[in-house]
């Protein structure tokens, strides 16, 4: 006789599993979705750590983690996700010139959302102590402009979103994030223990991303090249440049791309999303048009905000060039294929 099969014990879905699947194998991408929820997960100098066992078998930390919850195939959607309208554009304000990444569209849209009280508070990433990127909460245009520009390093910014959501308050929120962070925000909105997320997060602006860098490694590499943190801005110019550009203290530096690439989070290799396809609006560099952004409006809320900005003359918009969209779609498809291959390889050892 074959004994009846014992029903398997329910698998834990808390910190222990997050450690086993994501943090201990070094796959954490420092999005910050697990931070700010509890005292057990801490973030220092760009790195997530768990000094003590939390003792619970289920937790939001695991439920929010985009690496743990990653849906690599995403077969239901095309490579760049749902798109209501594709544009190329830039901010018209002279204030933003030189301070922003590419066309300044993200800063302008976010500032407008705050100006119009569409949202009352926004979570963005900015350089903190010793130049370490970190999440900050801004409530007005000047705060947004202060955080403009990217340094391409993980700052755990969603920690600030979790803090905002834990407060006894009801005002609407916006968040700007990388694809991993947009995925995490989607998970938050769907999580039964985080009902306030769906209620309060009214605007998600996603960024295009091919990879992100751990701040500690980047800082050490910069130091080896004589560049002192903090950086005011950084960029990967399109091929065949082969360099990483860094602006620090008003001076400009170039680092070899291969050295910077070698630093990138191992967990980024499994990310299938180039264009933050779960956002209201996704924004990235516009290929072949320096100083401009490519903008994908994905939801009616996103499209409405874009329209309002153009109507007020804050943005200069043009329909996206078909060739440019073709290249973007190809790049997104390639990223998804790489992620699928990486995940398969890990699964089969």
């Amino acid at each position, binding site marked *: 006789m074959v004994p009846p099969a014992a029903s398997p014990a329910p698998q834990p879905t808390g910190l222990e599993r997050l450690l086993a699947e994501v943090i201990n194998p070094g796959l954490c991408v420092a999005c910050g979705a697990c931070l700010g929820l*509890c005292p057990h997960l801490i973030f220092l*100098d760009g*790195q997530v750590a768990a000094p003590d066992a939390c003792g619970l078998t289920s937790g939001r930390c695991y439920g929010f983690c985009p690496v743990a919850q990653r849906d690599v195939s995403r077969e239901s959607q095309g490579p760049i996700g749902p798109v209501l309208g594709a544009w190329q554009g830039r901010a018209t304000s002279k204030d933003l010139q030189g301070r922003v990444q590419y066309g300044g569209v993200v800063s302008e849209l976010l500032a407008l959302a705050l100006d119009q009280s569409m949202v009352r508070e926004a979570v963005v990433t900015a350089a903190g102590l010793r130049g370490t990127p970190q999440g900050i909460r801004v409530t007005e245009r000047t705060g947004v402009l202060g955080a403009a520009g990217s340094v391409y390093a993980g700052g755990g910014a969603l920690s600030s979103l979790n803090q905002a959501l834990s407060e006894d308050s009801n005002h609407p929120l916006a968040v700007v994030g990388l694809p991993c962070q947009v995925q995490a925000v989607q998970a938050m909105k769907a999580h039964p223990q985080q009902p306030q997320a769906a209620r309060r997060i009214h605007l998600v602006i996603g960024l295009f991303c091919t990879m992100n860098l751990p701040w500690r490694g980047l800082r050490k590499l910069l130091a080896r090249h004589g560049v002192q943190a903090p950086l005011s801005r950084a960029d990967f110019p399109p091929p065949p440049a082969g360099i990483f550009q860094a602006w620090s203290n008003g001076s400009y530096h170039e680092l070899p791309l291969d050295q910077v690439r070698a630093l990138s989070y191992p967990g980024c290799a499994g990310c299938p999303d180039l264009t933050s396809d779960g956002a209201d609006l996704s924004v990235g560099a516009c290929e072949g048009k320096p100083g401009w952004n490519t903008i994908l409006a994905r939801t009616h809320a996103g499209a409405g905000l874009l329209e309002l900005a153009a109507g007020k003359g804050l943005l200069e918009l043009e329909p996206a060039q078909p060739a440019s969209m073709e290249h973007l779609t190809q790049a997104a498809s390639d990223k998804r294929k790489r992620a699928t291959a990486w995940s398969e390889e890990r699964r089969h050892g």
Partner: protein
Amino acid sequence: MADVSKLAPGQKVLMQGNEAIARGALEAGVSLAAAYPGNPSSEILQTLADSARSAGIYVEWSTNEKVALESAAAASYAGLRGMASMKQNGVNVAQDFICNLTISGTKGGLVLVTCDDPSGVSSTNEQDARFIARVACLPLLEPATPAECLKLTKLAFELSEQIGNLVVLRGLARLSHTRAGVTPGPLPEAKPRPHWDPNERWFTIPVVPRHQVMLDKLAQAGELIAAAGVNYYDGPVRPELLVIASGSSRLYADEARRLVGAGGRVGILHMGATWPLDQELILEHLARADKILFAEEVDPHIESGVKSIYAQHVRELGLKDFYGQETGHKPPIGELSPSRVAAAMADILGLPWQETDPAYLAKAKAAQALVAPRQVGFCPGCPHRASYWSMKQVLSADGREGIVSGDIGCYTMGVLPTGYERVNAVHCMGSGPGIASGLGKLRSQGFEQPVISVVGDSTFFHAALPALVNARWNNSDYVLVVLDNSATAMTGFQPHPGTGSTAMGQAGTAVDVEQICAGLGLPYTVLDPYDLEATQEALYDALQIGGGLRVLIFRRTCALVQNKRGGHPWRMSVDPQLCRGEDCGCDRFCTRVFRCPGLVFDQATGKTVLDEVVCVGCGVCAQICPAGAIKARPKEATA
């Protein structure tokens, strides 16, 4: 402690063993007593310090045990009597001096008191310090009662002066703190004026002839001890079983023979002096018994000595059965007890023996289940808890598997859950920075883990300095954290060089940790460990810098000392509306992870409550509560 110089001679009083040693030293006319605190010895020096003014003597807490014995030796060379007291570990610290002093010799009576700690109740080891008598060829006296503590201390000074060498008196934890009737004798009326005759010189060369002199002194001590009558026999003329015992074990043996009902069959040879062994007396009693049991703590010091004597006289003595460590009748580890000795006696004599009535044992076991298990832990408000908390958080966030090299003091408990088991190694005073220094030199061979050495303020002065100089000199890469609680807290708040006060309560010159660091060219930062954010930021930065020895001074007064100085500033409270209890987002973080005894998890409500009797109001827990439920308000505002 009491001023024992004021006791009336001839009037019996209740005294601790350690107090009796102090009184014995006063009666012997000691002029200079020095010590480094360490349980179970600390009360000897404190009693002398508290008696010093009325007795007109000098008493000091020294920076370490070696310096204490050297100071006491100075009195000897000036023609006065000196004494140094220490715990067993201290004998190791003083050993280098002892092994040279024994060759150069002494003038005024000089006594070393070691208080050993079998079972290591308050020690990092249970070392039997009697080894020093054999290694350095020194007479060794072992009292069993407080009355003998007084008597043998006086004898030790006499003996020292008669042979011109150091004499060792060995106490034990039980004896140190046992109280019993003691009848003090008179104090000396006058003492000589200190003077070092310039024609007298004390050194060890030529070594070989002086080595012979040392041996001659030991032989002379043997004769004097035999004449002093401190070793004696108590029992039938021809006992079935002879017990040879010293120290507290003599009392255990006496009690054991009554417990097993063998009073008339067992004799006890009480050894008040165990080095050199009184060969004549031992041979006399070996001849009268065929079975011999040894009762002593911890090592087989008498056992091996007696067996050696027997081996030389086996033809005349015939065959004997010896019972002791080698036969398992005396455990090689841990304290002895009356029941342990009784079990050995019953086994040898074939008598029934049951330590405890089974019915009582069953009741005791049932009662034990009702008692909550307790762990040794830091006091409420202890700055060390906050310090280890920060180290735990920072080393985890650093992520390079950092190592903490520990040291001796309350903060040794960093190896235990109360210190988040954050300490990786602890050995002896000052060994922490030494080990860190070595680790910090393995960088070139691929050792990448960050290293922290923690030392208390008293340990810093006691034995850390040579290791720090070594690290500075050789450019070792680590972070020294001085856990400066401005007290020698573990041993009873004795002053130390940093506090500026002295054993006799007079103002000394405070020695400044910062100035020492500056003098060594070491970068240092002073932090308040109660400020978790600033402490963690500074520690993290210090770990990242690398490249040499750098110092963080975590300065915050011992919570117990602060309680005596008016307490802490905060009145703490827990808001049950905000407390998250066992939910995701906390899961009893304060009571399960941080674990200050001032916070208690209330099972009934599922919330944390404050134990207002235990909480001292340090305010640290308010910084770790994720919900802001633990609140710190100034005491004055709420009074």
